[in-house]
């Protein structure tokens, strides 16, 4: 089975660890515990007839991606950049952050994820997506689990295509 390193990154409190826990353990907690450094876990995902072992690195949130130690990013085949759709501050620097990540890891697959969709109405969500300087690939809710499996399934398919 092929293994790939995937990193979950983004601003503070956008729900990276919640997405991580929902995906790996299928659980959610309202308590906010800040991630210190990094947490690593693994999950095997099935894409069509193939299996992929995803080694998921949940990196502590930073206001700007250039503040994250570079060594955490190295060797990553996939990046999940998460922002909180209910807090504009978390996607204010999205273009700068993604330019930085693309330059650092030009060959990796990047997924831009708008999390906490359960906190917004459809109208508010449309407004946020229209304001973004780039396309948001998927909107999720770690709380309800909406689109979380779909996010990793899409990413897994792209990673296997490139393998």
């Amino acid at each position, binding site marked *: *089975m*092929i*293994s*790939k*390193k995937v990193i979950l990154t983004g601003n503070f409190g956008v729900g990276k660890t919640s997405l991580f826990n929902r995906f790996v353990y299928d659980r959610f907690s309202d308590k906010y515990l800040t991630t210190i*450094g*990094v*947490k*690593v*876990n*693994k999950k095997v995902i099935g894409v069509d007839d193939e299996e992929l*072992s995803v*080694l998921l*690195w949940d990196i502590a949130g930073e206001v700007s991606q250039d503040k994250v*130690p*570079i*060594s*955490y990013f*190295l*060797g*990553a*085949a996939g990046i999940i950049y998460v922002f909180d759709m209910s807090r504009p501050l978390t996607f204010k620097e999205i273009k700068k952050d993604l330019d930085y990540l693309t330059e650092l890891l030009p060959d990796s697959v990047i997924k831009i994820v708008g999390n906490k969709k359960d906190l917004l109405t459809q109208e508010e969500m449309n407004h946020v997506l229209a304001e973004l300087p780039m396309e948001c690939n998927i909107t999720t809710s770690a709380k309800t689990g909406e689109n979380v499996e779909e996010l990793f399934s899409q990413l897994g398919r792209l990673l296997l295509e490139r*393998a």
Partner: protein
Amino acid sequence: MTTEKSPQNLGNEPNKNEDLMLSMIREILLKEDREDIADIKAHFDDNEKLAERINPIIEIHVESMKRKFPREYQKQVERIVERKIKASQDELLDVVYPVMGKMVRKYVNHQFLSLKEGLDDRLGQLFSFKGWYNRIKAMVMGVDESEILLRDLDHTSIEEVFIIQRDSGLLMGHFSRNETIDRDVIAGMLTAIKSFVEDAFSKERQELELIDYGTYKIFIQSFHLYYISVILDGSISSAEKDALSAKLLDFAEKEMPNTLANDVSPSDYETLSMQLSKYF
């Protein structure tokens, strides 16, 4: 019987004669050239004859090239080699790393051995019983004598060995005496800890070498594109550390491929794991 010549026939007769004459002249003039051409053609068609003529000329040219090559092409060759080295620095480092490490270690070991032998000689002259030796050793090391006795009894065993990609933390090979819960996660977390410590202290060329965890020690030998992590049960002395390090360098030199792909294929994983089990 007489043939009547038509005016047309009368006109062609001198032309025919002229052609015949020209042909004869051509034959006379070109005879030698044609013979020469036939001779040359025969030489070209016969490989042996051709080689007989050409080989000495080629040999002279080869000799001349050998003499002139360094002068004529030195700069171009240097440029090509320089370009090639720059382009494949990673591969080069991976080849050189284990050899250099071994050489440095050998030298340091030799120096320590000389020092130790010198000390042993001196101590041997002063004391003849092991108990006395241990007492003095304890005094020199500043530790309790019982600790030295315990250390002699302590047996260190290798529990697990991981070969891990340096950047991604992906497991490339593994050996274990017992079943491990999730070796991929251990490899990833070890890489994260290693990255965290090395980034936090940001000392140039300093690497995490040992992690203490209860009775376990995690010994880390870093290479350019990967590192080998050995989980030990029990304490480890400097000499044992050196021996383990030498063994890992030897393993890297003999068993590790010179180039590493981004992905770890299941067959590569199996091969390296099998080699690890043979070594440990």
